[in-house]
């Protein structure tokens, strides 16, 4: 048996060759030459919607030679919020992470500025709505890229038949499909009368007073239609104002016509209320209607999504924006920005909106009239007014215009619904206001 010996010269040559290969390897365009990218998307409740975003990302990854890993993180049990908090603590995690409403501001110090990406998107898609600017921008810096996936308006979804029969209101005439709204008569007074009539007929409006998002969003929109803010944009307390008193008085009247258990409602309660046929109106994106389409088609074909009633200071509707953020400690920021651009082209946005059955709502000026909202049904046109195509109402979010870090506390602690409930349960107005003022003072800690 012969044994080949490695000479010193051969050893040096082999080492030099290996070193050269290792140094030059990253510059050779291989299958995943542009590195790795991990994405944490929100796990959409519409099953096929995830596939649409996966397809867009995969097509981009193949073109750009990037190895992508996508995790779909559900919002059930606040798993997405826990993930955001954990990654912020660990300073490690996904390169792109879906963040709902307040979280870009909450993590503003840790996010990579996205001015270049959003600047290009504005040129391409038009201006984003005011709520998205409020939630996504800080001191001129875009904290994250507005996402269409998960973004929604929580406007009224009414039963055409029940509203006509019991309240004498034809919601299709107020908000005709394919046309601008003719809803001047749809104001808070008409809303209260309709609520009373429907409650007497045993099909009460399903508006919750619990501490979850749907309940808070409705209260926020009604407060804004009175011009009632607990904290103004400069961070001053504005609880003890006539506007807030008027909003509370309105809510007290409304609560008398809501289901008696509304104080315990969560985000699923109003959906169940509509789908089971027990109510004439709820405040929700079209998810309840979509479930009804599957489980109670006779209910779904009577549903019509439309605008909020107007108040003394205007017509407001809650818009909840989702964002895609990139951590400042991300290892592949350029690739992250690349895929975010791919996810926000008009074609990609339309593809994702169609996959979600019209639920997802882009914030961009030029993208509120996609075909999907005109065509979805039954009844055809039920979602036409969902994206606010005629800018008939001002999109906002509860607790705005307070500085977002204070507003987040007001929103999360459901201060407005608690105020309404306390006052409706017999607490004196001034006591309720004093309580709310104390709460808001506490939210101002930095």
């Amino acid at each position, binding site marked *: 048996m012969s044994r080949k010996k490695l000479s010193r010269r051969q050893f040096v040559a082999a080492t030099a060759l290996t070193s050269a290969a290792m140094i030059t390897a990253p510059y050779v365009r291989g299958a995943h030459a542009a590195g790795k990218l991990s994405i944490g998307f929100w796990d959409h409740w519409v099953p096929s919607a995830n596939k649409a975003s996966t397809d867009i990302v995969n097509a981009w990854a193949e073109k750009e030679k990037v190895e992508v890993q996508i995790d779909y993180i559900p919002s059930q049990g606040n798993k997405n919020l826990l993930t955001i*908090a954990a990654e912020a603590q660990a300073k490690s995690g996904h390169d792109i992470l879906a963040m709902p409403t307040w*979280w870009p501001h909450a993590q503003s110090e840790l996010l990579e500025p996205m001015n270049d990406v959003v600047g290009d998107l504005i040129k391409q898609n038009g201006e984003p709505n005011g709520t998205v600017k409020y939630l996504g921008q800080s001191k001129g810096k875009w904290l994250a890229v507005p996402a269409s996936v998960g973004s929604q308006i929580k406007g009224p979804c009414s039963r055409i038949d029940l509203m006509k029969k019991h309240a004498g209101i034809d919601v299709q005439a107020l908000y005709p499909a394919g046309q601008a709204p003719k809803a001047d008569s749809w104001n808070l007074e008409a809303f209260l009368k309709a609520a009373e009539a429907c409650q007497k007929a045993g099909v009460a409006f399903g508006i919750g007073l*619990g501490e979850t998002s749907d309940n808070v969003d409705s209260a926020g929109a009604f407060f804004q239609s009175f011009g009632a803010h607990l904290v103004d944009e400069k961070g001053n307390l504005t609880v003890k104002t006539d506007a807030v008193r008027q909003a509370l008085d309105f809510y007290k009247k409304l609560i008398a016509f809501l289901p008696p258990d509304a*104080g*315990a409602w*969560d985000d699923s309660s109003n959906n*169940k209320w509509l789908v*089971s046929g027990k109510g004439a109106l709820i405040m929700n994106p079209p998810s309840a209607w979509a479930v009804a389409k599957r489980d109670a088609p006779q209910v779904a074909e009577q549903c019509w999504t439309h605008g909020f009633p107007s108040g003394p200071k205007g017509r407001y509707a809650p818009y909840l924006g989702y964002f895609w953020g990139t951590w400042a400690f991300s290892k592949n920021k350029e690739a992250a920005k690349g895929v975010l651009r791919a996810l926000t082209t008009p074609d990609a946005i339309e593809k994702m909106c169609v996959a979600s059955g019209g639920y997802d709502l882009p914030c961009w000026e030029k993208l509120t009239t996609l075909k999907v909202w005109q065509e979805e049904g039954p009844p055809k046109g039920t979602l036409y007014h969902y994206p606010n195509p005629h800018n008939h109402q001002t999109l906002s979010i509860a607790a705005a215009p307070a500085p977002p870090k204070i507003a*987040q506390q007001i929103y999360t602690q459901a201060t407005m619904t608690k105020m309404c409930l306390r006052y409706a349960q017999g607490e004196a107005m001034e006591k309720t206001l004093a309580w709310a003022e104390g709460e808001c003072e506490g939210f101002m*800690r930095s």
Partner: protein
Amino acid sequence: MVDVALQSSQAAVRTARKQSSLRNLLNRKSTIAFLMALPLILLIATLVIYPAFYAIHLATLNKSMARFVGLGNFEFLFKRETFWLVVKQSCIFAITAVVFKALIGFIVAHFVHNIPAKGQRKWRGMLLVPWVIPPAMSTLAWLWLFDPSYSAFNYTLGLFGAGPIPWTGDANWARFSVILVNIWVGAPFFMIMYLAALKSVPDQLYEAAAIDGANWWQRIWYVTLPMMRNIIAITTLFSLIVTFANFDIVRILTAGGPLDHTHIFATWAFRVGIEGSDIPLGASVSLFMVPILAVAAIFILRDISKRGNEA
């Protein structure tokens, strides 16, 4: 020369003594026990002690976690009305639930103890079911039973012309509901512990008591309870800690509502820390459980060691 020889022999003695003391140390049962427990100690250090100290560290930071504020977060909490509501509710929740769990566990343990040995295993198994099912899952079933609009309980009450009861919509009923579910989940633990304690009480004591003419109450008061008191104390302490730190039942059933009237430390810490993005304040709320539980632990354990010394 003599000095040198003496020194070397002393060194040899020292080495031999060292070796034998090391051998003795290794041969000691306590050393072996320590070494065998070491992996678990390391695991606890990593998963419990490190997070505990990290929580203390977090509790000393400001909201944006950029500045050290010492006890500032606690000072802030003490001025909040909601915080004192949470303290009050945590105490009501934990004490009421533990008392009823102990009482029900004690009574059921006696029933099971008196079932003939042949059928006892089946009953023990069935009664343990609520404790064995993951609470998050069983609480979901309770949530459906208590559902504001479609409660199965209210439906049943309606058949008798009663109700509906706002199980989770009214502050007092909501407190009752979360405590009820906690008792349902935790009572089997007390039952099984008390059953084990009952089985260890010598029959001769009851026979002697019977000869002395003791009635059933006297047998319980003078024989059963004194024989079980250490188990009762340990079980109570353990349950008090677990109940005070409960999260899942309240979170799933009421999420702290209505009007914060069912929030307990863990659920409010989650609301403030995770949902409200104020992690330092959330950590401070969680840590507030420590002094309360420490006081309870000191009293209960001191009583146990006193009884141990008496024995």
